[in-house]
């Protein structure tokens, strides 16, 4: 376990030694800020039309809906950011041959995979924490439901968790960062649209149900509504473990190729 934390700390620090991670976080904050400003403008305009106040009736959305909207949009932005964060996890090491340093150290392959996963997860956690300045304004100037907000963020972190695991796995399959980026983005996008395409691909049978279960958005939406269910938490945890397992197999199998 110590080896995983060492690898995670080294990779986390290394990620900020180049402008890439900073630029990605800047991009994420910038787009989030635009969404935030748009939401606030709409809210103010709707409030002006409905002087009964925030959370009142008519067309004025409750503050909580704005926070939900911010978190919902954030997870779509992360479809662009996340692959750029995970693409170099293994691909970079394979290309520069520094993978040999990890292969010859007296540590298990799981330590390496988990360390890579932790570093990318904490990088994105850091980015999401920076973006939480926007809901914080609503907390200060409004009256949102704090637990529902926290549950929403929990759902976001679980979503990021499995997507990072997926990105780590794809990165372990290639030494080309661009390919890792591309296929991670395509994979995450495919998972997103599974809900919509499942009935078209598989009709209404068992296969369609399985595909719909694999779609993350339905599991994520319950967190946005402030609901933590064992089914949804287990989905994200199992998907994370599954992709980390694939990544471990891929990394370990390099010895035999």
């Amino acid at each position, binding site marked *: 376990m110590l080896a995983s934390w060492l690898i995670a700390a080294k990779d986390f620090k290394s990620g900020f030694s180049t402008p890439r991670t900073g630029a990605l976080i800047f991009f994420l904050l910038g787009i989030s800020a635009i969404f935030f400003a748009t939401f606030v403008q709409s809210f103010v305009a709707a409030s002006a039309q409905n002087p009964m106040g925030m959370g009142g009736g008519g067309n004025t959305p409750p503050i909580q809906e704005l926070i939900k909207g911010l978190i919902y949009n954030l997870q779509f932005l992360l479809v662009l950011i996340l692959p750029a964060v995970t693409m170099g996890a293994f691909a970079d090491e394979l290309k520069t041959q520094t993978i040999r*340093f990890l292969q*010859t150290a007296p540590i298990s392959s799981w330590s390496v995979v988990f360390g890579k996963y932790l570093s990318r997860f904490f990088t994105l956690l850091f980015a999401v924490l920076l973006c939480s300045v926007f809901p914080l304004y609503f907390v200060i100037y409004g009256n949102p439901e704090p637990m529902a907000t926290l549950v929403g963020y929990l759902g976001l972190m679980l979503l990021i968790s499995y997507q990072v695991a997926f990105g780590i796995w794809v990165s372990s399959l290639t030494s080309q960062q661009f390919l890792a980026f591309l296929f991670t983005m395509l994979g995450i996008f495919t998972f997103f649209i599974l809900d919509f395409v499942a009935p078209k691909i598989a009709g209404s049978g068992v296969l369609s149900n399985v595909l719909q279960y694999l779609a993350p958005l339905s599991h994520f939406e319950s967190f946005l509504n402030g609901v933590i269910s064992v089914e949804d938490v287990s989905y994200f945890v199992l998907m994370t473990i599954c992709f980390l397992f694939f990544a471990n197999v891929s990394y370990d199998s390099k010895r035999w190729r």
Partner: protein
Amino acid sequence: MLEIANLTKTYQGVKALDNVSFSVNKGHVVGFLGANGAGKTTTMDIICGCIGSDKGHVKICGYDILDEPIQAKEKIGYLPDVPPLYRDMTVKESITYAVRLNGVAKKSDKNKKASVTQRVTDMISMLALSDVSHKLVGSLSKGYRQRVALAHALVHDPEVLVLDEPTEGLDPRQIAQIRDIILSLKEDKAIILSSHILQEVENLCDQLVIIDKGKIVTTGDFEDIANKFAGHSYVLSVRHYQDDLLGQIEGLSCVSKASKDDKNHIQFDLEKPEALDDVAKFVLDKGLGIKKLAPASSSLEGIFQNVTSQKQ
């Protein structure tokens, strides 16, 4: 300490290694020689667990590299041909990372941080990296990078050292420094190193393993190999050289091959050493006078060429 038995590795139907077996004991430096593509790096990668073999086993201090990889890797330090260095770390950070990852500070250590710091300081001092400890690895010269990579291989004081081309691309002063470091480590370690610089192998190694096209051609100490493969080569220099002398020497039944340099010194190989009398008698009967007739130098280059040409 290092035991390799029946290693076989095939890539897409081509045998990169074919039944490779040898061992390295403590206190010895073994030179691992072979032409490009002979299988040296593949063997070293298998020894250190970077790749797996199709057959055979590697044991480091009794631990099998595949069955007990973590215990085996604790006993081995590897300097690959392309040093795996993180260029965005400073020298000190890089060595500290290697120290921590190799578990140098044990759980039982009362003051782990002090143990780590001391080890890093020792490595920096041992490899003369004090002047550059604060610099990024990516900004260092090749010689310094090689020393940082060697530090990575030594941080956990391994009992077995595997060095793949440790002096490749270094200037003579740097080569001498690396050589001195390797010699200082020899006493309590088993070291295997590969090099294309045969002079370095002659200076550093007391045993040789020669590989050609994935197969071990010979192993042993220098003297045994020289006796076996230096061949019965002799150099002849005569007082009254004739233009057709080379052809006449080549035509003798006891001579397997002959060549001449630009000073009319003829080097020839005999099938049996006793036939030297016949050659001497031939030259004297011709009235050419013998200025010099002596065994050719049994340098490592000569041995290596003989070994690989005999394989062909």
